[in-house]
């Protein structure tokens, strides 16, 4: 049964996933700006390999919640634990390499596809080998795109490059902010299938915002519903959606 009691949701999912510990934990996470509450006291735990969907109406605080998870914004209350460590004790750059994020809009840097993919590792004084770039592009379904200028890519292709760019950092947790919402149906299904296979293959933990309930059903182990910044329900996806 879906519940607004976090613990029960975790226990249910934990049983489904085999209970392997906690990859990411939001503890009383809140954010308010100029008196407006965007995220209101959300506590949730995400286990390694779990896919958690975050759904809710527009303006409910889903993106605000996600941005708090890799500290792109600062919580005004509570904190996040990454692999058991309070993320305020981790350098933000290090944290963001481990907790990768794919945004709603690809926001690629002008240049070639390879330049974009090499960007993340370069920030960590690492050079990504051309073969690794080719392998990543092959994995996201863009073989032969290495030297393409990003200005010539379609929306779906740009989003695939954005995903490859994030994966190049080899993150442990993947945050997805409606990565398919700006795409047509065909591209959406393509990206969705790709995400699912990569997440499973790399055994990544994933928190994904979606406005599409059927998409949550297809992808997520658990689903959390946010309304007006508050978590109003969490549990196994089918149960939450059936109850909602």
């Amino acid at each position, binding site marked *: 049964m879906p519940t607004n009691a976090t613990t029960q949701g975790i226990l249910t999912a934990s049983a489904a996933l085999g209970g392997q510990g906690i990859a990411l934990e939001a503890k009383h996470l809140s954010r308010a700006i100029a008196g407006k509450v965007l995220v209101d006291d959300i506590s949730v735990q995400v286990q390694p390999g779990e896919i958690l969907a975050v759904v809710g109406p527009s303006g409910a605080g889903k993106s605000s919640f996600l941005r708090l998870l890799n*500290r792109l914004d600062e919580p005004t209350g509570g904190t996040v634990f990454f692999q058991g460590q309070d993320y305020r004790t981790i350098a933000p*750059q290090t944290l963001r390499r481990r907790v990768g994020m794919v945004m709603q809009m690809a926001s690629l840097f002008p240049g070639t596809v390879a330049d974009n993919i090499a960007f993340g590792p370069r920030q960590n004084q690492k050079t990504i080998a051309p073969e690794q770039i080719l392998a990543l592009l092959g994995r996201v379904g863009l073989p032969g795109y290495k030297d393409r200028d990003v200005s010539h890519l379609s929306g779906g292709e740009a989003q695939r490059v954005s995903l490859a760019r994030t994966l190049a950092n080899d993150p442990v947790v993947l945050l997805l902010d409606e990565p398919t919402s700006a795409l047509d149906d065909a591209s959406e299904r393509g990206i969705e299938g790709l995400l699912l296979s990569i997440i499973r293959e790399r055994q990544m933990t994933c928190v994904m915002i979606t406005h599409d309930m059927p998409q949550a059903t297809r992808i997520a182990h658990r689903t959390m519903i946010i309304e007006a910044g508050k978590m109003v329900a969490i549990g196994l996806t089918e149960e939450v959606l059936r109850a909602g």
Partner: protein
Amino acid sequence: MLAEVMHSLSRDVLEGFAQAGVAIGLCLVVALLCRRFAVHVERETVVSLARGLAQMTLVGLILALLLQRHLLVGGFILLAMTGAAALTAARRAQGIPDALRLSFYSIAAGSGIVVAGMLTTGTLAANVATLVPVGSMIVANTMNACAQALERFRAEVTAHVGQVEAGLALGADPAVAVAPCMERAVYASLLPRLDMLKSLGLVWIPGVMAGMVVSGASPLYAGIYQFVIVAMILAASGITGLVATLLIRARVFSPAAQLLLRPSEPRPVVAGYAGPGKEA
């Protein structure tokens, strides 16, 4: 002191006022001409002419009083001008946090370093009569460079929030994430000064050269010295632009590398952004 003032009010000063009267008359004729075409600038023209004449007369008087004073007096005058310039630049830098202090430091750095360099190398004569006019030209130009750098930086960042945050989300340092914004801001602040240098002598003959020639200096030396002044203005503007963008960069990110500067309303992604760490 009084004798110096009286000396300044000599015949050539009266002649100067007469020449100013002619110039004012010509401007008023133009204002009336504009009125015939429904362009109403009469009031503004009169106010501007009155202010301009009063201010320049006052500056002339102050210079006459301070001509023989210690160089430090000139330094204090330039410092006061820097404060006034910072106020103006900060007013033009809407939405920039701590704009006044930031502008003051930037203008003081650009002007101060260049004026000190010029004095040390003897490029600028170490007397108040030379220091204040040349210094004020440099301060005025660094004021514009500062305002242009700040405004352009703000515009670049708010137009490219997506790319800046994509860089941050990939683990980039704030300095790397906004590097293209900085490059463009500094370049934008330098562009008018670069154009000024390119058009020097071709499109305009600046005041210093004209003044030197009128006072009987060799036109060749006056031309070369004018180039020196404009080059120093470029150098001062470059320092100011760099300092201003470095200071503002530190203020638009939180200690946890979060972007604090945001557009008031969502803006579309603008094409042509160079991307973090890339040349434009």
